[in-house]
C-alpha cells in the first residue's frame, strides 16, 4: 500500500533568459510513492509558496502523457529513468528513500530557457510551419475511402505520428539535434499517399528551418530513440535522410 519516501532535490532555478541560473537544494519529505513526479513537484511548490518563496516553474498540462508540455532532465535522463514515459506519467515508486534527484531543464540552443525548468520550444512550431502539413484546403478533400492506404503504411505512419513534440529527443541528443522530431513528421506524411505530392518541398523546407533554428546534427547516437516517451524509431531519421537526398535537384537532375 501507499508508502512515503524522503528525497533531496537539486533543482535548476533561473529567473529568466538573462539570469545565469543555479542549482538549489530542496527537501521533499513524506512523498507518497503513488504520486506522479509532477504531483511531487506540486507538493514541493505548495510548501515553497507557504513559505512565501517562488514555486519551481515547470510546463505541464494534460498530465496523461499526450500533450507534450512537461519534461525535465531527471538524473541525467530526459523524462526520468523509465523508458517510454513522460515526466507526468513517471511515478514516485520508481525512486528510493533518501535518493538525491537532480532536475534540469532541456538544454539546447534551439530551446532557450524561459524560467527554471520551462524552455521555449517554439522552434518546433516554426519547423512545422515550414512544411509539416499537407496543403489541403478545407472542403476540397475527396471521399475518405477513395484512396486506400496499405495497412502497414498507415500503421507505420501512426507510429511516427505519435510524436508529442515534447523535445526529449533534442534534450537527450549529445548534439541537441532535432532530427527525430523532424524525421517523425517527414515519415508520417511521407508514408501516406496523400503526403507524397509535397514530399520534396516538405523535407527541404523542414530541414532548412531545423538547421536555421540552431539544432545540432545527427551523429546516429540513437539517444533520442531511447529517450522518446512515444518510442519513435530512428528509422524515421533514416527515411528522412533518404527523402532529403532524393528531394535535391542535383546538377545532373536539374531540368533545363
Amino acid at each position, binding site marked *: 500500500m*501507499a508508502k512515503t519516501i524522503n528525497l533531496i532535490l537539486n533543482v535548476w532555478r533561473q*529567473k*529568466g533568459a538573462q539570469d545565469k541560473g543555479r542549482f538549489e537544494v530542496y527537501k521533499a519529505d513524506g512523498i*507518497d510513492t*503513488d504520486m506522479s513526479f*509532477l*504531483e511531487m513537484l*506540486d*507538493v514541493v511548490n*505548495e510548501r*515553497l509558496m*507557504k513559505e*512565501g*518563496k517562488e514555486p519551481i*516553474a515547470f510546463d505541464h*498540462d*494534460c*498530465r*496523461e*502523457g499526450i*500533450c*507534450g*508540455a512537461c519534461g525535465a532532465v531527471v538524473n541525467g535522463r530526459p523524462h526520468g529513468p*523509465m523508458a517510454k514515459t513522460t515526466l507526468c*506519467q513517471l*511515478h514516485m*515508486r520508481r525512486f528510493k528513500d533518501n535518493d538525491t534527484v537532480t532536475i534540469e531543464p532541456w538544454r539546447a540552443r534551439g530551446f532557450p530557457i*524561459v*524560467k527554471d525548468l*520551462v524552455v*521555449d*520550444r*517554439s522552434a*518546433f*512550431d516554426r519547423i512545422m*510551419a515550414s512544411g*509539416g*502539413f*499537407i496543403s*489541403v*484546403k*478545407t*472542403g*476540397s*478533400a*475527396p471521399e*475518405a*475511402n477513395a*484512396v*486506400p*492506404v496499405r495497412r502497414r503504411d*498507415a*500503421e507505420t*505512419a*501512426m507510429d511516427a*505520428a505519435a510524436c508529442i*513534440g515534447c523535445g526529449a529527443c533534442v534534450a537527450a541528443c549529445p548534439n541537441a539535434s532535432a532530427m527525430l522530431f523532424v524525421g517523425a513528421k517527414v515519415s*508520417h506524411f511521407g508514408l*501516406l499517399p*496523400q503526403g507524397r505530392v509535397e514530399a520534396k518541398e516538405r523535407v527541404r523546407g523542414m530541414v532548412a528551418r531545423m538547421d536555421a533554428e540552431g539544432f545540432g546534427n545527427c551523429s546516429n547516437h540513437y539517444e533520442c530513440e531511447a529517450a522518446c516517451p512515444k518510442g519513435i524509431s530512428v528509422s524515421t531519421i533514416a527515411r528522412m535522410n533518404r527523402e532529403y537526398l532524393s528531394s535535391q535537384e542535383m546538377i545532373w537532375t536539374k531540368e533545363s
Partner: protein
Amino acid sequence: METLNAKIPAGPLKDKWISHKDKIKLVNPANKRKYRVIVVGTGLAGASAAASLAELGYNVEAFCFQDSPRRAHSIAAQGGINAAKNYPNDGDSVYRLFYDTIKGGDFRSREANVYRLAEVSNGIIDQCVAQGVPFAREYSGYLDNRSFGGAQVSRTFYARGQTGQQLLLGAYSALMKEAGKGTLKIHPRTEMLDLVVVDGKATGIIARCLLTGKTSAHAADAVVLATGGYANVFYLSTNAKASNVTAIWRAHKKGAFFANPCYTQIHPTCIPVHGDYQSKLTLMSESLRNDGRVWVPKNKGDSRPPSAVPESDRDYFLERKYPGFGNLVPRDLASRNAKEQCDEGKGVGPTGQAVYLDLGESIGRLGRDVIRERYDNLFEMYERITGVDTYKEPMMIYPAPHYTMGGLWVDYNLMSNLPGLFVVGEANFSDHGANRLGASALMQGLADGYFILPYTIGDYLAIQPPGKADTEHPAFAQAREAAARRTGDLLQINGKRTPDEFHRELGRLLWDKCGMSRREDGLKEALKKIPAVREEFWKDLRVPGSGEELNQALERAGRVADFLEFAELMVRDALHRRESCGGHFREESRTSEGEALRDDENFSYVAAWEFKGAGRDPVLHKEPLAFEEVHLATRNYK
C-alpha cells in the same frame, strides 16, 4: 425574461442547412483580408476554424495559453470520432446519427443544430484523411470503424487510442500551414482576460502575455471563442490542468448569455482517486466498454480479490439492468449506476469508490493479441499509474468529470447574443443537450471549425464595414486597465493559502453537492458556501512572485477566481432545473425504478443566463426547444 431566438432556418429539417448555406450572405473574396478575426483557443474547434478562415482569406489572429497550439486539450481525446459514413454497411445514416445524438442528449438539444452536425460529419472524415490523419485501416486499405456507447452501429473512426491527438495534429498542421504563409498570426503563451464590447458588438479582446505579464489589446471585426469546457471547476477532472472557464466567463460578464451551465458530463471509466495530493484524474477510453464487463461483488463488503469472486457472486449490473445496451449504455447512465453501487456499499478498492471493468472474458475469447492490439496503450497507462497488470487483474474504474455540455449560448450561426462574438466547440452549448455521446466531441469541434463557422461568420461580417474596431477606443483602455488591476489585486492579497487549496475546496464542494446527483437542499447549501469561499479567497490568497514574468501561480489564481464566480451560476442553474435529464440528475425527479425522470412540460428549454452585475442575481432567458422531427421519448436502453 425574454424568449431567445435561435434563428433556425425555416423548412424541413433535412433542408435547413443546405438552404441556409444557399441564402447566407457572403463576403467578397477581395474584401476578406480587410476583416480581422480573433480566434481564442487552438483545440480542434479553434485550430480548424482559424485555419479555415485564413484559407478563405480572412486576416486571422489565433491565441492560446499553451506554449504551442498543438498542446490544446483536444489532444487527450482517446476513443474516436463519429461519422455517418455507413462503411460497415450496418444501416447507419445521417438521420440515425442525428437521432442517436438527440436521444443521447436526453432531448435537450436543438434539432436543427444536431441534424447539421450529423450532416457535416462525413466531410470531417474526408478532410482529416486528406490532411494525413492516420486512421485505423483494415487489411484492404480502407478505413476501419468501431462501436461506441449509445449507438447500435459501428460509426466511430479512430487512430489507436490517440484519435484526439491525431485530429488535433491535423488541424494544427493546417494552422501551421497558414501561419507559414503569413495569412495567420499565432500568439502562444497568451491568455485572454477579457472581451471588449463596443456598441453592443464584440470588437476585440484583452490578453496577457504569460511570459512578460504584459496585457495587450487586440481589435477585430469578429471574435471567436474556442476555449473549451469548464469541467475543472470540480478541481479533479480529466481535463488538462490549465483548462479553465475564464474566457467564456469574462465574455458572459460582458453580456454573453451562459446556457445550461449545470449540464456536466461525468465519464464512467476513469482511474479512481488514490490520494489527497491527486492533481487530476485519468480517463481510460470508453472504448474499453466494448470488450469489458462492468461488475461489483453481489454482496456488500466482499473484500476478496476479484479473481477469488466466483461468477455467481458477481453482479454485472449494467448488463442486468440494461440488457439491450449492456455495458454500452450512455455515459450518464453508466456513471450514475457505478455511483449507486458504491453508495450501496458494494464498491471495491481501498476507498470503496470503484467498480471493476473486466476484460478477462474478452481476453479469453479473442486472445491476448487482439486485446493487446486494441487497448495496449490504455493497459500500459493503467499499469504505470496504479502498478496493476490488467492482463491479470480487472481494472478498477470510477466516474470523473470529463466534459461540459453547457457553454455560451449561440444561435444557429454559432453567434452568441452579442453580435460579433462566435463560440465554437465545447465552449458553446449547442449540440449535446444534457449529455454527450462518446466520440461526438471531436465531431462537434471539427464540424464547427471546418464546416459551419467559416460559412456563418460571413453572414455577420458581410453587413459590417471592415476594420471598424480600433484599440484606440476607450473601451479597450478601460478593459485593459481593469484586467491589469485584477491581476495586481491577486498579487497583493498576501494571505496564507495557495490557489490550489481554494480550488480543491471548491471542487470538493461541487462534487458533493452538484456532481453526479443533485438535491435541492445540497444545491442551496452550495449556493451559500461558494460566496464564502470566494470571499475567503480574496482575503487569504497567497501568490508569490511578480506580475512581470512567467508566474504560474498567478495564472492559476486568476483562473480559480473565475471558477469561484462561475460555480455559483452552475449551482443556480442546477437548482432551477427541477428535472433529471442526461448528466443532470436531480434526486427529486426520478421514476419508481429510480431512473432519471425528465419533465418535458416544464423544462423543455435551454436555460440561458444573463449576467446582471456583481452581487445581483442573473436573469434567466429561455429558448424553447421545439421537436418537429423526433418524438420526445423516455430514453430507454433496456
